[in-house]
């Protein structure tokens, strides 16, 4: 816990965002994102995106989804730490994956955004979402498309 008389924190660090669609964690993508963050000496912001159905208020607590997200976020944090990469995990919600992403990059600064493509049995973002993200991402974006032979 930070006590009031402690000095303010140090200058900002580079931040690499890697976003996951709800329920999915692809270890191949995670390892690649960790490699990128380590190479850039950046903090890896792993974001678990939760889509809130239209018949729920956007502000409603999402207990089931959070229950699914927690072990995934902890696994990412553990993996990042084992590799010497600081991880700052997030859960972000929206009416769609695009909405959740927009909320996230509106609220926070990222130096690079990594989105996994859904191909060859790997979970991730579909082509329309990726095309949209390429058009709208506020910073450099990287689409990760694991090799077909990579085992998810």
């Amino acid at each position, binding site marked *: *816990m*930070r*006590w*009031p*008389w*402690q000095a*303010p*924190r*140090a*200058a*900002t*660090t580079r931040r690499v965002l890697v976003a996951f669609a709800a329920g999915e964690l692809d270890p191949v993508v995670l390892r690649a994102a960790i490699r990128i963050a380590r190479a850039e000496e950046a*903090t890896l912001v792993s974001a678990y995106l*939760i889509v809130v*159905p239209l*018949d*729920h*208020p956007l*502000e*409603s*607590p*999402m*207990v089931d989804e*959070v*229950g699914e997200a*927690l072990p995934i*976020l*902890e696994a990412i*944090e*553990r993996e*990042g*730490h*084992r*590799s*010497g990469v*600081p*991880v*700052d*995990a*997030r*859960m*972000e*919600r929206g009416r769609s994956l695009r909405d959740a992403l927009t909320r996230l990059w509106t*609220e*926070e*600064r990222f130096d690079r955004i990594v989105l996994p493509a859904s191909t060859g049995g790997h979970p991730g973002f579909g082509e329309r979402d990726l095309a949209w993200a390429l058009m709208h991402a506020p910073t450099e974006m990287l689409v990760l498309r694991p090799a077909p032979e990579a085992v998810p």
Partner: protein
Amino acid sequence: MQEPLSQTERGPADDSGRGHHRVLLGAAAGVGKTYRMLLEGKQAASLGVDVVIGYLEPHDRPDTIALAAGLEQVAPRPAEEAGARPEMDVDGVIRRAPELALVDELAHTNASGSRNRKRYEDIGEVLTAGIDVISTVNIQHLESLNDLVFELTGVRVRETFPDRILDEADEVVLVDLTPEELRDRIGAGKVYPPERVEAALANFFRTENLQSLRQLALREVAEDVEERRAPHRPARDTNPLIRQALRERILVLVEASPRSQRLLRRAWRSGQRLGADIDALWVHPPGQSLDEDGRVAVAALRRLAVLLGVHFLEEEDRNSVQAIARAVADRRSTYVFLSRPEDGRLDRLLGRSRLDALLDALPGVDVRICADAVDRPGERR
């Protein structure tokens, strides 16, 4: 004001002769409580039990009105106040002295001029007169859940009834319907007239509201079953003060740092297991300006708190311990979660840790210092 009946008029009313109270509990209007009450009344009547309808809220539902036909109804008592709806005639029911009375909506508030302010008090008199009662109520009216229902649904329920009514009931039976089925029933006009259907479905009867209310109703009945399953145990939850005392409430001390995300998530998981409500408290000195990382961290914590259904509290105070103690008292927290505190040079010079100061300020409160799992030895490659 209505005068109570004399003891002779009421008939034999002592503890051993008290009627049997069966409460049909539902998650929301329209799940079929009244219908089930009438059905049970009819079944009892077909077995030769003397049944009357003490009070019925037909809500102009044709199925309900049709089912009530054939059951004797004690005429409601006209309200003394002009324009008010008639109320259950308690004395009429007691005078009629059936074996079983069916009474709808036990949380109802009687019109002014009635002897009892609430219908559950009327029911109490009927039970005392030795008459069995089947009554109905929705979970949102339960007093102890009032704040929670407001948080979950955004609707503040005005008509409440004390928890002891359910505790004292002989049976609490859940009348259950899935949110989808209930919305279908409403959509088909079986619950509200056509002009109210759209508003009902878009507001109170939204799926997530119904899911939350159903969860509350299921939990209440499950707890009731558990209490009855082990009658040898002291009935510790019958007293609302004791119930309040047993309820855990977690306070999570967060800071403008990523590790507070992990702390808050961890506290949430514990809260799920304990059935505890959770508050997150961020204390900072007045006028403190955060750097960008700090601002991002606090904003992210606030968003996480919303997702988790956690109340986020912010206190400006130079004395963190004092602010924490104040929050613990205000929120009636029973359990404080914090990350491992880091002592500064001044604390080391004074030979006293911040944790000591915090523990001294929080007598009777459990304090849990959460290690960061990523700090465990051997984690790093």
